[in-house]
């Protein structure tokens, strides 16, 4: 087990990348502590899998270094990195039994057979396949095959890290929950560094201690789920995390006031004047119906159980409110009030700090 460091790491699938968009992974430096549970979150094609494959050595980065602890592993082949990885779609060795599948990584490392048997039994219990150990892997359902893949990923105890590349895509929802809980339990028990790639924010937020949000090949923010929610560093994070995502409105910011389509909105703190596209962002649960404030046009209301979502528009931009189920909604309202303390200011999509805190 080791701390994982990326030093000015970048990758392009093209031989001679020029434009910014040629890079599947833009230059980044980051350190992940030993034993952490990390989630890489982002939409499809944002470079998550590229980063994962660079860690496991399936891909050689175009530039930069990968370090496990103090050791530079950039040029090490996959086998010598001692990494476990579970892929999006099940990979099983068809001709082997479930037992042989689980034992395969251990066998390849030449472990004594009694140790292999003990590990295989433990993992089989974990994935709930004790009864099917002697069946052939061919002909099992996709669910079962993916559980075998997960099991193979977890069977080695001495790995530097376990990487999961959207491993629960093919698993049905109830089993998904169960397996994720088990992964968490496994993490607590053995303290492996775990890196979990997903485009599902619920999965990321429930699994990880720290979530790394990626967009278009760039790491836009890394932090605890709470900090991503409360203080997104980039409009993408605000929009991507939370359901519905953060409301974003074009604004002019002057001191501690924002002007949105002619309406003045008080901010929690003064900001310095900036050039570029200025937006204010606020979470839907920090907005309330009001009789004065920002003009709002309600389009429809959705009851999603423990709260209600009011979808509408402010100054032509989509704008949502989240109201707890026990709170009454006025029969008709055309204004909304924003909680000043929870408004964030973004310039060219990046969050900026107010004056006092920056100083």
């Amino acid at each position, binding site marked *: 087990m080791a701390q994982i460091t990326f030093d000015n790491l970048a990758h392009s699938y093209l031989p001679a990348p020029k434009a910014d968009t040629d890079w599947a992974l833009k230059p980044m430096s980051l350190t992940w502590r030993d034993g952490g549970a990390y989630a890489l979150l982002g939409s499809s094609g944002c470079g998550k899998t590229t980063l994962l494959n660079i860690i496991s050595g399936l891909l050689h980065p175009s530039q930069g270094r990968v370090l496990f602890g103090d050791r530079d592993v950039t040029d090490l082949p996959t086998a010598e990195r001692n990494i476990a990885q579970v892929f999006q779609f099940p990979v099983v060795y*068809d*001709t082997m039994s479930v037992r042989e599948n689980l034992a395969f990584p251990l066998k*390849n490392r030449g472990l004594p057979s009694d140790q292999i048997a003990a590990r295989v039994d433990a993992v089989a219990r974990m994935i709930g396949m004790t009864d099917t150990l002697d069946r052939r892997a061919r002909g099992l359902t996709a669910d079962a095959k993916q559980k075998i893949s997960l099991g193979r990923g977890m069977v080695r105890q001495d790995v530097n890290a376990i990487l999961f590349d959207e491993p629960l895509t093919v698993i049905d929802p109830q089993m998904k929950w169960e397996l994720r809980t088990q992964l968490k339990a496994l993490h607590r028990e053995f303290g492996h560094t775990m890196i979990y790639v997903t485009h599902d924010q619920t999965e990321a937020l429930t699994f990880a201690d720290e979530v790394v949000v990626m967009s278009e090949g760039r790491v836009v923010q890394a932090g605890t789920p709470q900090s991503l929610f409360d203080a997104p560093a980039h409009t993408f994070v605000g929009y991507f995390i939370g359901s519905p995502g953060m409301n974003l409105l074009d604004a002019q910011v002057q001191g501690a006031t924002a002007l949105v389509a002619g309406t003045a909105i008080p901010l929690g703190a003064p900001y310095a004047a900036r050039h570029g596209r200025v937006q204010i962002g606020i979470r839907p649960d920090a907005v309330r119906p009001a009789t004065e404030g920002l003009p709002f046009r309600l389009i429809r209301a959705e009851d999603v159980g423990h709260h209600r979502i009011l979808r509408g528009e402010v100054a032509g931009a989509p704008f949502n409110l989240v109201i707890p189920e026990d709170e009454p909604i006025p029969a008709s309202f055309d204004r909304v009030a924003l909680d000043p303390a929870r408004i964030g200011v973004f310039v060219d999509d990046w969050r900026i700090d107010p004056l006092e805190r920056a100083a």
Partner: protein
Amino acid sequence: MDKPVNNRAWFLVLPVLVIVAFSAVIPLMTVVNYSVQDTFGNNQFFWNGLGWFQDVLESDRIRAALGRQLLFSAIILAIEIPLGIFIALNMPKRGFWASLVLVLMALPLLIPWNVVGTIWQVFGRVDIGLLGHTLAMLGIDYNYVNDPWDAWATIIVMDVWHWTSLVALLCYAGLQSIPDAYYQAARIDQASRWGVFRYIELPKMQGVLLIAVLLRFMDSFMIYTEPFVVTGGGPGNATTFLSIDLVKMAIGQFDLGPAAAFSLIYFLVILLISWVFYTVMTAQRDRT
């Protein structure tokens, strides 16, 4: 739910029955017909029971030809299947070279069989053939016309040249269908090169290998044109395989009865051996 029963529906399968009857059943039955009768000319036939079958089964000449045929097919399979797999594993996976190699590999398959025979017949000649002449210049005593060993070697090399491509292309198709994730998982699991072959590539090639083995067995077991052109079955009877012997008997000697019995036995042997291959190779797959 009650299904309506209407026996006129049988007329719907009639066209298929007619086609199959004319293309397969009736021709085969004429052979069966000849195999149980004898004639002394004048289109007069006499019932001969299973006499011809007995003669064929007891014939030393046909037994020897069967032995040569089995040996030939065994050698062909033993060379072409592993060689085809080996070539497929080493063919480029994509890009310009992959296309070029595919075209080159397909070339021998596009040449008519008698032309293949002619090519090798000339190629191996000691006086003007590139191969034969070169070997002679190197001081190697090679002559497929006189020496049974050389005749066999020539025909086997010719068949390998002609048909290994087929095995390689089939295996290549099987290999191309393996997703990258399998190779990546194998690297993660620290599998050896042999492990990758044994547990990923070979199982995924099983289906196409079955086809390759069956095709190569049947074709090599029925081989006629190429050895007929190159050696004509000689020297002596050294390369007289079953089909060459059969043609001699049916057309050369016009022994219709024995030739018909011979054909039927030949057909049953091919069917039997193909069934054995199929059963053995799929039993492995269907085990759970």
